[in-house]
């Protein structure tokens, strides 16, 4: 429990640091939005009035405090380009990206763990070189290209979904899930290749340990040893890796949403960067960053559940 509390405090500090950095970075370097909105020919009085209206005349720390308070009450400021509250713009997109990420995460975990165990059992041999090459090839395919290939296959050849016609959860929940599935698959495939490779090699190295030999010499059968002894040890690095995968999925969703024309956070982020709509960029970056930090902490906590040694700070 003390470990969990310590992690929670670290998490809190990281979140404050990250959100402050994001806030300050956009605030200092983005220049004066008041002049940007009014144009260079605006009178100084008008600029001054708008600055006061936007709250730009107060010191940085005060504005950060207000912004953070607003972040948790749903008041994220006003978008420069749409003139609407940022939260109203973002809220419908959060759910889409969340579902997409979770879907591909479940896909990765559900496919790669059994496949990794299978790979470890049949590991070594003449096929291991071929698998290394295949793994390199899988990792070499960029997510947007994979997305285009899958679009071509499933949308243009097989006609399983219509590219560019995202239904939305409100109108057609099942159709939306089906549409998202192909994007989730795009995100999952390279990660599955990596996880399988990693799980295979950890299981193989664990199988060579002395406790396995002891267990087998005491009359246990191989699959029992694998299930009860080896997996527990081999899963620790995999859980860490899957948590990183969560972060990678979030990042990958930015690109994949663009490929599949899914109106999620990532697409909004890219559009806002191109428009220099900083309040929106700020909000989305902080949301995605919190997401990443949170999943990292969660993985740590799960890891210490599996392997209590980690709680003492020493590695396995």
């Amino acid at each position: 429990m003390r470990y969990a509390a310590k992690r929670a405090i670290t998490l809190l500090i990281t979140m404050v640091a990250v959100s402050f950095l994001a806030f300050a970075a956009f605030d200092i370097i983005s220049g004066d939005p008041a002049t940007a909105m009014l144009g260079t020919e605006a009178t100084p009085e008008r600029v001054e009035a708008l600055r006061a209206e936007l709250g730009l005349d107060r010191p940085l720390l005060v504005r950060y405090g207000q912004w953070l308070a607003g972040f948790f009450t749903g008041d994220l400021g006003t978008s420069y380009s749409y003139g609407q509250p940022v939260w109203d713009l973002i809220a419908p997109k959060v759910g889409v990206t969340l579902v997409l990420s979770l879907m591909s995460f479940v896909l990765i975990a559900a496919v790669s763990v059994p496949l990794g165990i299978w790979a470890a059992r049949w590991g070594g041999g003449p096929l291991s070189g071929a698998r290394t090459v295949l793994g390199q090839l899988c990792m070499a395919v960029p997510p947007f290209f994979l997305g285009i290939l899958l679009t071509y296959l499933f949308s243009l050849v097989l006609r399983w979904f219509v590219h560019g016609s995202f239904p939305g959860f409100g109108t057609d929940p099942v159709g939306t899930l089906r549409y998202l599935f192909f994007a989730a698959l795009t995100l999952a495939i390279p990660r599955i290749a990596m996880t399988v490779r990693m799980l295979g090699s950890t299981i193989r190295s664990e199988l060579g340990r002395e406790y396995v030999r002891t267990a087998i010499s005491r009359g246990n059968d191989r699959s029992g040893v694998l299930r009860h002894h080896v997996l527990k040890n081999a899963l620790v690095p995999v859980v860490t890796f899957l948590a990183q995968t969560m972060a990678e999925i979030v990042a990958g969703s930015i690109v994949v949403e663009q490929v599949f024309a899914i109106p999620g956070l990532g697409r909004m982020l890219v559009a806002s960067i191109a428009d220099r709509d900083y309040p929106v960029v700020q909000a989305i970056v902080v949301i995605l960053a919190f997401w990443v930090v949170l999943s990292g902490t969660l993985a740590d906590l799960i890891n210490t559940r599996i392997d209590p040694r980690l709680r003492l700070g020493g590695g396995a």
Partner: protein
Amino acid sequence: MRHWNGYLRAGTILLAILTAAIVVGCFWTPYDPTAMSVGPAFDPPSLQHLLGTDRFGRDIFSRVLKGAGTTFAIAGATVAVGAVCGTAIGALTGYFGGVVDGVLMRLGDVLTAFPSILLALVIISILGPGNKYNVVIALGLVFIPSFARVTRTAFASLRDVNYVKSAQLMGASSLRILCVHILPNTLQVLLPAVTIGFNNAVLAEASMSFLGIGVTPPDASLGYMLSEAQSMLSAAPWYALGTGAAIVLLVFSVGLVGEGLQRRGGEVA
């Protein structure tokens, strides 16, 4: 240093062919990559147009050659920025240690926890999107922590070996020890890191250009071309396939070299 293995050999050969094609592409392409109507629109691959033509009748093979050159140059510049700055930081913190070391490494831990594309997007949105130099700066900055971490470990582990101690006793300056004595011995870990970094840079640049906030016309990079190709996917699937295959081949060959270097490092150590 003459331990070749299958991965290294295959990767080097493939990479050499690609590099040669890219270098040739800088000076000569079968057709002008930007000229329209050098052939009929949506012409499938043929001997005249190896990868076919697009909606405007532009020769896709010429465009891919040119675009690969841009992507290659940007990835190279990015890795150079990241590797030089990262190695300098890693060398100093690894060799001297102290408070600065602790703080910088903590910061690096936090930064590497974030997906590089997210960080790069933040930096590019601050610097201004759609400019190739900003892409290099943004990605270079993003890659510094990973290089710093790799080199720091190597420098810290070599700090107390005997040849470094004797160099210190002989009165060699710290700079000389770092550059002449330790640096050559860290190449074994540095080179695989460079290949991985190069691949990440290729993919990151292509992603950003695909999103329309990286390299923008008139400079064509493979990422931007793929976004163009996606809009004509049903009429000219060869455009997307040719462009994507170029990225995959580039990353694959560098990945093989990296794998080979890593395995060689394992054999030597």
